[in-house]
């Protein structure tokens, strides 16, 4: 029924949804996968990334492409401070305590954003115009997002497979005591991992800032789905999250196309619940250890 151009547009729209889910989940996945910390302030890091980009474009006049790169930098700096002040004292304590501490942090960051930016501040539009596909037009930026997501995943894969840090981080994740005994500087590796996770969240926020309305609450609307993506992804934090993004984002978008947004949202939730019941260890639970 939709025709060739319609099908292409649907496929592109599915791809964009998947990449948005992936971009907003990766930071959470890295921190949870490697440190077993549930970063409840993840949404606020998304928000800070989005605001950084917006401010750089609007106040400093940078082009969007460049401004997006400022987001991970801000979030990395902030993440480093957070790790030293709030996370480090909690290593070895119960997981729930880091979860609550980061939740407290999220409230603080949220209110700070309201105090600084107000409830509604001017945003930036999507750059690059649009392209025509048959009878349809598609935003160029929505085509760029999947490419950016793919590049980020590939880069992360290389970092964890090829660099010294990647090896140490994976070792520390699998057995911190053993890694420490072997001379891995676990503290520094954890700091780097947390900073990387925050930077990824910031990058995600920066990348979606041109297509959403940036407000202090913007991160919170992504957190729930990000949690579900990471949980259903399972222990292979990179490829598992990729798979769950494809599955959840794909299902949500396809169902939205066929029926309505409400059904799309419901389908995402139903699939996530089913996955948790059927595969309690996530999509990648049965894989031999991977990324």
């Amino acid at each position, binding site marked *: 029924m939709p025709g060739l151009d319609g099908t292409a547009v*649907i496929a592109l729209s599915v791809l964009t949804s998947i990449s948005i889910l992936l971009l907003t989940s990766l930071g959470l996945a890295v921190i949870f996968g490697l440190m077993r910390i549930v970063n409840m302030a993840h949404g606020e890091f998304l928000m800070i990334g989005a605001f950084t980009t917006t401010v750089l474009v609007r106040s400093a006049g940078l082009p969007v492409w460049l401004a997006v790169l400022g987001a991970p930098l801000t979030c990395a700096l902030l993440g480093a401070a957070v790790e030293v002040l709030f996370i480090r004292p909690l290593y070895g304590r119960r997981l729930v305590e880091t979860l609550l501490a980061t939740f407290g942090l999220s409230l603080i960051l949220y209110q700070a954003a309201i105090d600084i930016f107000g409830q509604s501040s001017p945003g930036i539009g999507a750059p690059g115009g*649009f392209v025509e596909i048959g009878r349809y037009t598609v935003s*160029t930026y*929505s085509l760029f997002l999947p490419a950016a997501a793919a590049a980020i995943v590939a880069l992360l894969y290389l970092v964890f497979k090829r660099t010294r840090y990647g090896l140490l981080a994976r070792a520390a994740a699998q057995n911190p005591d053993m890694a420490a005994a072997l001379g891995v500087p676990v503290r520094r590796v954890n700091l780097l991992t947390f900073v990387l996770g925050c930077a990824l969240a910031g990058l995600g926020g920066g990348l979606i800032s*041109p297509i959403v309305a940036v407000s202090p609450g913007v991160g919170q*609307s992504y957190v729930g789905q990000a949690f579900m993506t990471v949980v259903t992804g399972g222990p292979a934090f990179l490829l598992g999250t990729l798979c769950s993004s494809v599955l959840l984002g794909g299902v949500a978008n396809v169902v939205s196309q066929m029926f309505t*947004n*409400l059904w799309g949202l419901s389908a995402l939730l139903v699939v996530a619940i089913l996955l948790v019941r059927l595969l309690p260890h996530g999509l990648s639970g049965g894989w031999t250890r991977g990324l």
Partner: protein
Amino acid sequence: MNDKDNGTALVPAGCAGEQVAPGTDRREFLKASMAVAGGALLAGAGLARAARSDTIHVASMFDVTGGLSIYGQPEMSVSRLAIEHINKAGGVLGRKLELHEYDTQSKIELYSRYAQEIGANDDIAVVVGCITGASREAARPILSKNGKLLFFPSVDEGGECDKFTFMQGSDCLQMESPLVNWAMKNAGKTFYVAAADYVYGHVATAWTKSLVEKAGGSIVGTEFIPLDVSDFGATIRKIQTAKPAVIMSNLVGGNHMAFYRQFAAAGLNRSIRIVSPSFGLGNEQQVLSPEETKGIVVAYSYFETLGNAENKAFVAAYRKAHPDAGPLMDLPAQVWNGWHQWKAAVEKAGTTEIGKVVAAMESGIPFQGPSGRIVMDGPSHRNIQDINLATVDGKRQFKILQTFKQVPPSRQVVGSASCDLTGKDKDSHRMIMPKM
């Protein structure tokens, strides 16, 4: 719909004791005197009764903090400003007004809690407050059970049928009818409706459908979008497939602003016109970029740019008090109207006693305010008011396109009963649920 409120006709018991609702044995287990004594003992609750003769206590409940503070802050500011203005001009019946401010913090349970506090406070004569339909429905039944008058300043979907409540904002019919007519004439006859999936969205959509069909146009698609959706890829593809000439956007809230952004990014704003009865209330024109919003058409009773003298004075006073505040929208202006209409009614009635004030309100005293002339329509408890069509220019401002003088409100609830508060529903304290 609601038997409880239906069956509870309220008889104001005068000013000697507490309001007693027949049919319930509320408060009978305590003597009123004990309550008064207890209230007087505890600071904060009881207000010195001695001061009663020269002040009238009034209240406002708005979300000054939290997610809805974007609406609540200007509304509370204007509330303060209006009370100041009235007091400067000599007060009401020669008595000064004292405003009790309740910050409901964007939490529904606080509306409930404060409404009960106000309800139990004999001194408070009137409330101008509430922002969302949800907050109004949390507070209204409690206030009206306790014989308190409520002025609700937001635009709303209709259906309110409460003798003690006056609806200040324009209703769906008042806003959508000019929008549909304008769009039919200037953009085209095919409509796609994108609506927020909550009560307002559903009712507004029902009005859109009936108005478009009556005007000879057609609806080529309708979609209800949950409030937490911000990825509109699927919606935009469907719009492109349906090829409407006009989008009627009944979207609300921060997440839904992304719709306008993604709509423009896909280049659809070149060929399809958006009209909306809700755009702008959340400062959408400020958040989005000028390119994204240019050409969107809205309809409200009030715009900051209106040229009448009352508005110029109003804007000047507001800007003096809040130099950094954002643009003034419809809601705060209705707060101003509410306080002044109440003042006029009390002065006509010669008392703050609720029955007489309501009767005076229903008699239709005209008021010349920032949004022009308004007159209360007795049966519907809604204002007959001017509606202005405006479009967003390239500088994030609204430019008035056309003014419809003295547009009457709807006395009909979509697909359901009508409400006549001066006739058959004169004892009603309920909300009629619309049927679609």
